[in-house]
């Protein structure tokens, strides 16, 4: 064990000196990435077992749910809206997938129906928000209650067991040492990074979030855009729900309560503006990773439960404050 500690101090320090120039500039320009890198180095040095392959794999796995959903939540927030129903969608899609798989006996059908259920909820949210101009917080809060209720009703309130063994393999199928849920998360980051930055759709989303009236006068079909973004959110939450179910081996209607706040705060920590128009995929990635690392390290350090609350709160606050401070310093010195 002592070996490991020495090892893990050595690596980053050595690595740092040799940092290539672009990385150093990055550190200087983006406060949050700097926070993350410092945090990561700090944890690697100070927390035994942190920088081990196993632990990093475990860490990645533990952020898959938040990370996957954060990619589309970023789109929703960029649009100037918010979606509180994601946790319910995860539960509902999981339960539906479990039931359909068990009754139909086909994994493919179960998975598809589960994902479709999530997408349908998302599209409905989008429809309500875009067509009737309902505040998305209220619309998705209503959906959060309603869909959680549906999850309880379809499952009878009890976790649904899955009888088809093929279903479990989904969640544990592994490639290059990472399992499908992790790959899905990585995939979502790539896809929505590209969507946000490289497509007109992504730029229109940002524009609409920045000034919806101007976007609509500039020829953006704001209504269709909103429905699409919410439907994507539902789709991704549905996928996450199905994967969670397969990983856990059961469709639990109670799962993931409070997930929506965790996802939203990871996004906001990553610099996504709640008032819309500002989003960055690296920011969200870093936001997710910061939160995951802190949680993981507290586990490794055996921080008592109650103090974990303090640490989480403090880290969250310090990270944003540091980011602000860097920004203002840059603005001041520039």
């Amino acid at each position, binding site marked *: 064990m002592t070996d490991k500690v020495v090892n893990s101090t050595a690596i980053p320090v050595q690595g740092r000196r040799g940092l290539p120039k672009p990385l150093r500039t990055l550190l200087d320009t983006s406060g949050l990435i700097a926070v993350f890198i410092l945090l990561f180095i700090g944890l690697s040095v100070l927390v035994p077992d942190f920088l081990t392959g196993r632990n990093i794999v475990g860490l990645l796995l533990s952020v898959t749910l938040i990370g996957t959903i954060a990619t589309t939540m970023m789109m929703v927030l960029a649009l100037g809206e918010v979606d509180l129903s994601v946790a319910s969608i995860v539960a509902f899609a999981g339960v539906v997938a479990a039931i359909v798989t068990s009754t139909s006996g086909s994994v493919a059908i179960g998975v598809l129906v589960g994902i479709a259920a999530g997408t349908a909820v998302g599209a409905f949210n989008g429809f309500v928000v875009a067509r009737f101009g309902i505040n998305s917080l209220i619309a998705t809060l209503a959906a959060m209650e309603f869909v959680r209720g549906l999850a309880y009703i379809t499952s009878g309130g009890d976790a649904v067991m899955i009888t088809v063994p093929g279903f479990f393999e989904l969640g544990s199928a592994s490639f290059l040492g990472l399992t499908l849920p992790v790959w899905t998360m990585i995939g979502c980051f790539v896809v929505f990074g590209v969507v946000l930055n490289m497509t007109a759709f992504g730029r229109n989303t940002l524009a609409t979030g920045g000034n919806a009236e101007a976007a609509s006068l500039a020829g953006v079909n704001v209504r269709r855009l909103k429905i699409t973004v919410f439907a994507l959110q539902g789709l991704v939450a549905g996928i996450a729900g199905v994967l969670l179910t397969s990983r856990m081996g*059961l469709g639990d209607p109670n799962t993931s309560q409070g997930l929506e706040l965790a996802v939203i705060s990871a996004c906001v920590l990553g610099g996504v503006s709640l008032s819309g128009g500002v989003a960055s995929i690296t920011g969200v990635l870093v936001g997710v990773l910061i939160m995951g690392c802190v949680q*993981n390290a507290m586990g490794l350090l055996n921080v008592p*439960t109650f103090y974990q609350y303090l640490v989480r709160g403090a880290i969250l606050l310090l990270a944003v404050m540091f980011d602000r401070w860097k920004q203002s310093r840059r603005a001041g010195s520039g």
Partner: protein
Amino acid sequence: GMGAGSSLAQNDVKIGFIVKKPEQAWFINEQDAASALGEQKGFEVVRLSGEDGQQVLSAIDNLNSQGAQGFVICPPDVRLGPAIANRAQQYGMKVVTVDDQFLGPDGEPMAEVPHLGMSGYKIGRQVGDAIAKEMKARGWEPQSVAALRISNNELPTAKERTDGATDALLDAGFVSDNIFDAPQQNTDTSSAFAAASPIFSKNGRFEHWVIYALNEESVLGGVRASEQYGLAPDQVIGIGINGSGAAFAEFSRQKPTGFYGTVAVSSTMHGRQSADNLYTWITEDKQPPANTETTGTLMTRDNWEQVREDLGL
């Protein structure tokens, strides 16, 4: 995986203690007791929380990273059993369950994982029996007594408890039409209060009430609602489950209230015993009994201090 067996030096032993609700007094007591035992016997206890399946699996990964040889767990969902057992086996870790027993894919308890705990259903029956006994002692006619069942059907363990109490009451001759459900949205006092209020408003014709729920806090919420409605303490029998601060707070009031008693279970004993079982298994390779069942003790205003001391709460 990690090598196991008696070759390990004693002070290298590290076990995990994963609980589903790390903020609850019950589980804190369990973990405290396990840590105390660890200090006494010289092994390390890593306290972790697993509030859902996702967190449990991360917690196990985490334990593995730290090189633990096994863990005690109260799972957030008993049906996670196969997944948890699987993961543990993958890492070569030993598992014992406490409080809630794993269910296998067939829906039957997983006998291969040693368990220590009380059956929720049985503890519920204890509540029901105690209520029935006190009703008789007070000379209440079953027809004139209503039951407020503060339910939380989203939580299977809660349902087991209230089902047990209901069955015991029915067996004792309670009128099933007189049982009213108050579904709470949370497991705390104020949500129980909010759920209970309309039930009293609606059923004003009953003079006597009995109240039960999954824990003391919820029963207390019901009792507060009965007081608010204008029922006197001697018109109400509320019996909780656990034996935690909420009950002690109520018993230490000057005047008796409708909170008649609680079925106290020794979380300390659970924590200590399960950790000890696991430790013995790791160090001496002696598998603990498949299922150890514990029971609760009725704690009332008259005997609470004594029971508290006996159970080490």
